[in-house]
């Protein structure tokens, strides 16, 4: 990253992040390099226990992808560099890595003049850019990701009516998932580790493929729904941002799943349902009531914390008893949003 200042006006030469921010289209990104330019790469080397970064320079080729950079390094400079790929064309979903902190498919992503390449997060690193897929695969398998019908059918093709097709469109979107785990790595709630039992975006997409499929029997659907942990999702949309298949994971997968779980297993949705009920009744959210309704009297089991919260004005007895605002407007807004979905 060379920056030279020339006289007045501080003309900056060479690539800077700002260039990318100003012109962040793929066409512009592809135009950042010319054949013969060097791509400067820092690569994570090591495993979950110890690691270092090694730097390489790789000559740019037309429309170069990150995978070509890795192939160049392994055949010219570092034969032991470990990276996984199978198809090279966004179908197998095995070459997911992080480039400059963002999850990408190595086979699909245009190179940048300066790149740091790291393995996906939230999974054990076997070596360099290769992660252990098993924790993810085991979780998906536990959701029984297959269609089970209520009864067999005779003819081919199976009869599906237009009402079923209306539901199939969401399942069809989920079916474009290639299990690359980009979203699993990007998810900040998964990043909290064992603090939550959140299923994670990719496993939920895999579950949604059959849960939202109208061919799946109610019994099988409810069995899978009972295993999902959806309500820890904070709707930050990180997963949608990185999904190479452009699946609208929050709005078209997690939110429909939340609704189904809430209908079938309301106790699991206590936090969301209480939240909605409070807003409907009060016109705004009251955190004290939310905590009481979600956690019950367990919320009072740590008196020290309760006193601290009162001292910091997080809990207000006055607002708990007298805080009522325009409930009609709130109800209208909630219903509007629900109808939109």
């Amino acid at each position, binding site marked *: 990253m060379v920056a030279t200042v020339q006289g007045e006006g501080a003309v900056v030469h060479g690539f800077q992040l700002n260039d990318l921010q100003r012109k962040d289209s793929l066409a512009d990104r592809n135009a950042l390099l010319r054949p013969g330019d060097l791509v400067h790469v820092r690569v994570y080397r090591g495993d979950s226990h110890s690691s270092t970064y090694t730097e390489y320079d790789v000559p740019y080729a037309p429309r170069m992808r990150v995978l070509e950079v890795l192939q160049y390094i392994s055949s010219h400079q570092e034969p032991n560099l470990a990276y996984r790929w199978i*198809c090279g064309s966004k*179908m197998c979903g*095995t070459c997911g890595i992080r480039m400059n902190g963002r999850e990408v498919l190595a086979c699909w992503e245009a190179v940048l003049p300066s790149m740091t390449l790291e393995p996906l997060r939230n999974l054990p690193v076997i070596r360099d850019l290769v992660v252990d897929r098993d924790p993810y695969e085991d979780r998906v398998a536990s959701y029984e990701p*297959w269609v089970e019908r209520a009864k067999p059918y005779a003819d081919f093709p199976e009869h599906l009516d237009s009402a079923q097709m209306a539901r199939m469109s969401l399942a069809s979107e989920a*079916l474009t998932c290639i299990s690359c785990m980009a979203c699993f790595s990007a998810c900040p709630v998964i990043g909290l580790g064992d603090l939550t039992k959140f299923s994670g975006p990719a496993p939920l997409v895999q579950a949604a493929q059959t849960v939202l499929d109208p061919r799946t029997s109610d019994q099988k659907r409810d069995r899978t729904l009972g295993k999902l942990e959806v309500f820890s999702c904070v709707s930050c949309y990180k997963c949608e941002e990185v999904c190479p298949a452009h699946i609208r994971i929050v709005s078209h997968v997690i939110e429909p799943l939340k609704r189904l779980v809430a209908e079938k297993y309301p106790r699991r949705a206590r936090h969301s349902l209480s939240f909605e009920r409070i807003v409907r009744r009060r016109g705004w959210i009251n955190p004290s009531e939310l905590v009481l309704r979600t956690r019950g009297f367990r919320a009072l089991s740590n008196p020290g914390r309760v006193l601290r919260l009162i001292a910091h004005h997080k809990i207000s007895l006055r607002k708990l008893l007298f805080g009522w605002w325009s409930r009609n407007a709130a109800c209208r807004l909630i219903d509007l949003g629900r109808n939109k979905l």
Partner: protein
Amino acid sequence: MVELRYDVIVVGGGAAGCLAALRFTEKRLRVLLVSKSLAGKGGASIFAGNLVLSGRMLGNTAEQAHSTAEFLVKYHNQYLIDQRWAERCGRWVESNYYAELERAGLYLRRDRNGSVVTSPGPIRSVAANVQGNSGVNLMDVRRKQLIRAGVARLEEVMVIDLLKRRDGSVGGVYAVSILSGERYVLQARAVVLATGYSDRLHRRSTGTREMTCDGLVMAWRAGAALQNLEMQWWHTNDLATPAVWQRVQIYPNPILGAPGSARMVTAAHEDFFDQQRDDPMAFGPYCLQLKALHKLVKKGAARYDGGYFSGFDNMPVSDVETYTAYAKAYHQLGMPGPHALLECGVTAHYRQGGVVVTDLTRMRTDVPGLYVAGGLGGHSNGLIALASFDGFNVADGVADDFDRLGSGDVDPASTRAVEMRLRDLASSGRRATGQYPSQIKKDLQAAMWDHCGVEKNERGLQTMLAILDDLATNALPNMRVPGGDGKCAYEFLGAIELDNMVEAARLIVLSSLQRQESRGPFFRDDYPYTDNVKWLAANIIRRTSAGVSFERRPYKCERFSPGFERKLNSEVPW
């Protein structure tokens, strides 16, 4: 070292291997599936773009059903096929295949009213969810079926060689985990090789990373005969760049739900192939496209690796984007949409030939205990449906033969030989000063592209033989093999892959020299005629004590016949 014993071992996690493993499980045989990549995520099967309908389904007529059989024999195999097998296969695809997949949960794309969307052309196709990505969904269904059925899998595990019993029958495999370095001796009554057809032997090829001729060469070393290795198919519509997108195609087959298909044009934007116009009955118009391109190259108007273009500028963008994934490349290159034209190049695609199957109902080879399924077989060009048919059959075959198969231990000498080979490789890494396996692979792929590419002739093929000799005597013994603790040993195992690739290339070049004609995608400049008198025949290669021997075995034309004796291949319409 882990030693395991099963009833049967299936090598390969594509369409043939997965279905075989599922069928074995149904038959209550204890099966182990060994896959060099992830089962259902590797191999050529995930690349299946469409599912071609065979028979009178979903609006196909009797005439169309007939055309489908004709398609298999004529366009797909240039008559180098057992026509009875082709008919049996067609019937199975029609009556079992699609229905079984749908029952297993495959979603065939529907319209708003629930009708399955087909292409409107004379031979219909459907898609699993999205056209262009059907194989991804189909193989994902298979992967999940394997999980559901509890089929034992060893994934990202490379089979180094077949292991034999003292009586010469195949009784297991020796395998190494790519990720952990763990070594396995896996024994069984029978081994099914289902390692596919599309190997990365040329500078541009459609195979996946792991497809490096391993199955072909293991079968050869075990003593199996091979046939029609020279019959290499080429894809004309894969993108010229980026280099890793060798399987991203702007393919001129019929679009689902709308009339029309991509157009192939010269640099001057003149049409040179339009499937709807030039070849409406050939669903996979590979050969005719290639012949059209061949003429252009001869005129100096294009190259096999670029200089011509393909795109959907002849139809509304919405037709392309409704049911297909074809637009994904345009978007990722930052182009406005699929109406732009993209530069294309040829890639080595199917290999029609492969291991000789001596009994096509049981998928036996001439080595006891060794069975073959899918594209690795020399009995037909690949297609996901045909590979599945093989997977289905091989399970019946092994189950029928089961009581007659050997059950004794493999010969320890057989295991020791593999271990010696691995030890040699590991120690050569310390002393050698030559190139790494991946560099030599690139040299090999470049040489195969130059001398055993689309156009072949005696001189080029002899040059290639000399290059292969040189590689075998100089490059391979001095190869630098990286050591390490065996974890993620891609490059170490790459040395084994390279051995396989060099041997396969030699057999392919020898077979190409032997077939003295041109046929379909096989262009010999020095023998430009298709010769049905002499070469409507399998070109079989066998190992002998003196080297190799060839046999020419004619095919019977019981139902379809080419109707001419000799004709310039460029004028043959298939």
